[in-house]
């Protein structure tokens, strides 16, 4: 509940936003009521935006279906749990010894990961069978020292989409970051 109060406290009370547009010295400070025409235009905009979002979804799904069909799709996500011992700068990803992603994080992206987001680092197609994933993490580790660690995993790609998570966690006992690669079943 404390979280909710924190969110709500950002909002502050509401409705004091009027600079006496009427010129009436006895006008209350209550805001203006939109006219029927204004509402109609606003609703027209909302409808357009709704359809634009739907269109974007359809286009994105179409491109995904064309380029990365389920039978060959492999998606690799990156997430950070806590992130006290590593300030992430970049991640390099190799699949079967071939570099497929090399990502440098902005402060905003790193913050989004720390807040609980998972980045879809890679979306691509691979053949069915055995594959080796190697991830190299770079950043600033404990005591602000440069930090570089690699982690690898073998995954078996079947006929359904394969999802893999690269996860950075904190190992409190050793005061070190820890790297896991988790093979999520897409099916």
């Amino acid at each position, binding site marked *: 509940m404390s979280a*909710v109060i924190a969110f709500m406290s950002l909002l502050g009370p509401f409705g004091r936003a009027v600079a006496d547009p009427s010129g009436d010295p006895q006008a209350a400070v209550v*805001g203006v009521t939109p006219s029927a025409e204004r509402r109609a235009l606003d609703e027209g905009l909302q409808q357009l935006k709704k359809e634009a*979002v739907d269109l974007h979804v359809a286009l994105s799904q*179409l*491109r995904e279906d064309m380029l990365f069909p389920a039978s060959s799709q492999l998606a690799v996500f990156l997430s950070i749990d806590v992130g006290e011992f590593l300030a992430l700068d970049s991640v390099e990803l190799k699949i079967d010894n071939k570099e497929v992603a090399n990502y440098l994080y902005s402060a905003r992206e790193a913050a989004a990961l720390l807040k609980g987001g998972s980045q879809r680092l890679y979306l691509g197609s691979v053949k069915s069978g055995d594959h080796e994933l190697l991830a190299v993490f770079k950043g600033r580790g404990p005591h602000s020292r440069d930090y570089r660690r690699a982690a690898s995993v073998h995954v078996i790609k079947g006929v359904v989409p394969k999802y893999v998570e690269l996860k950075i966690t904190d190992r409190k006992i050793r005061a070190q970051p820890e790297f896991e690669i988790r093979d*999520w079943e897409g099916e």
Partner: protein
Amino acid sequence: MRERRSPAGMARCLVMFALGLWSMATAVAATPEPMAPHQPGTIPMTVQDLHFGDVLYELFQGHDFEALSRDLQYSGTGRIASQPADARLIEAGLWLALGFHDEAGARLETIMRAPLSESSRNRARLYLARIWYHRGYDQESERLLREMTAVPAEDEAERVHLLSNILLRSGRYAAAAELLRGWQGPDDWVPYARFNLGVALLRDGQLAAGRSFLDELGALKSDDPERLGLKDRANLALGFALLEADRAADAKPFFDRVRLAGPYASRALLGAGWVDAKRRDYRAALTPWLALTERSSIDTAVLEGAVAVPRAFHQLHADAQAAEYYERSLTLFAAERDRIDQAIGRVAEPARFRTILDASVNDGSDAWIAPLVAEPDAPESRYLFPIFAGADFQQGFRVYRELCFLETILTGWQDDVVDSEQILATRREALDERVRRVGAVLDSVSGSPAELVEARTATERAVQDARATDAAFAGRLAQVSGQRLELLKRLSELRLAEVHALQVLARAALDAQRSRLTEYELHARYNLAVIYDHAATDKAPAKAPAKEPR
């Protein structure tokens, strides 16, 4: 005065609210332990779906459109299977953040019907009530506010504040006053509530009660420009209310309290002059009214002062000065009318009007003001500035700006469509090539006729499947492409309609100013004619000119 949060900031908070509601819902549903404190905006529970995490990743970077699209795409393909309820909450917040109030409102209503604690439900009601209030759906907002029960103090203050605003907007002054009398809110909001209470009482005919609140507010000590503006307004409201009640002597101190450097000074000077004029002390009235003639004539009070001054001279039987000041006011009115006509001309031409709007759209968030500031003496600047700054114009301009943003997005998708068409063409070429190669291989190999027939049949089936898949893709792409063009067409129509609505708004405001000006001009001409008439017949007028400015 202005909103303490920008629309974008507000929208971000709405998403944060959804996240907060999410944590509440989860806590109510599943977590008996108290939640550990965490930073605002962080997620206090495990993200169970990678794709949901991806939505949050976009959301936390402020990519609301992308986050919502991904959320809908992933939900639609069953990739947020573990936490669909969470996804719905985030979705509602994103609809809000993107300005889809109706969609968000409908979703929040649905969420409220789900099992939630009463306190969570009240929060959702309050939030939804805010949305409806903003959108002008006062009845819906009022219903939700009245449904709230056992509300904690911090929410109760806002609930009452919103409810009283709705009552004031609908002219239910007595009910608003009753509600506001006992209002206890955050310190920085008390003056606004007191002002509204004072005004509600005045409007309800309770002058003495309204006076006590406005008098207190009018004596407020503060360095804050917003509060000083409110203080001026309280004094002005009370001063004019007392004038209307024929209590000119009581009104005087309130006009005197208004700052001469503030935006309400001209109206205060006008009121101060009227106090003296009501007491027939025209010599005293001339002091504030002459001061008024030195001020910017964009203010209606200054135009009114331009006819009040010669009228006072006339009452003092100083007809030479009266005639001189009427002549001056006529010159002033003619110049102002020319400027208004030029501004009307600027507004009337859609292309020229759109130039102003587009310059504002392209320059950034608060840059609507830029083209007007660049040419402060241009007629459109002088008159359009206050019109553009008005809340109703700003509502329309927000829509216009969003339409431009949407057009940019839709236009950008053209590249994706073309790219997809090329992918499909490449796939078809690759398939044809493979078919040709397989055919050549089959032609060249030796084997039993049955095996060859089977191989050819299997190949043909595979090719048919591949072609069918490609045809399906092509169909979907054609549909998406057609919808994009259709949306662009409708968007263009809506943008024109919005430009027209803004033109009408600006034109109506300019026409109103022109009409006021004409009224003053007629009054001045008539009274000047009376003076000249009497001068020509060489006898003093039997009485003062009949017409008064107001």
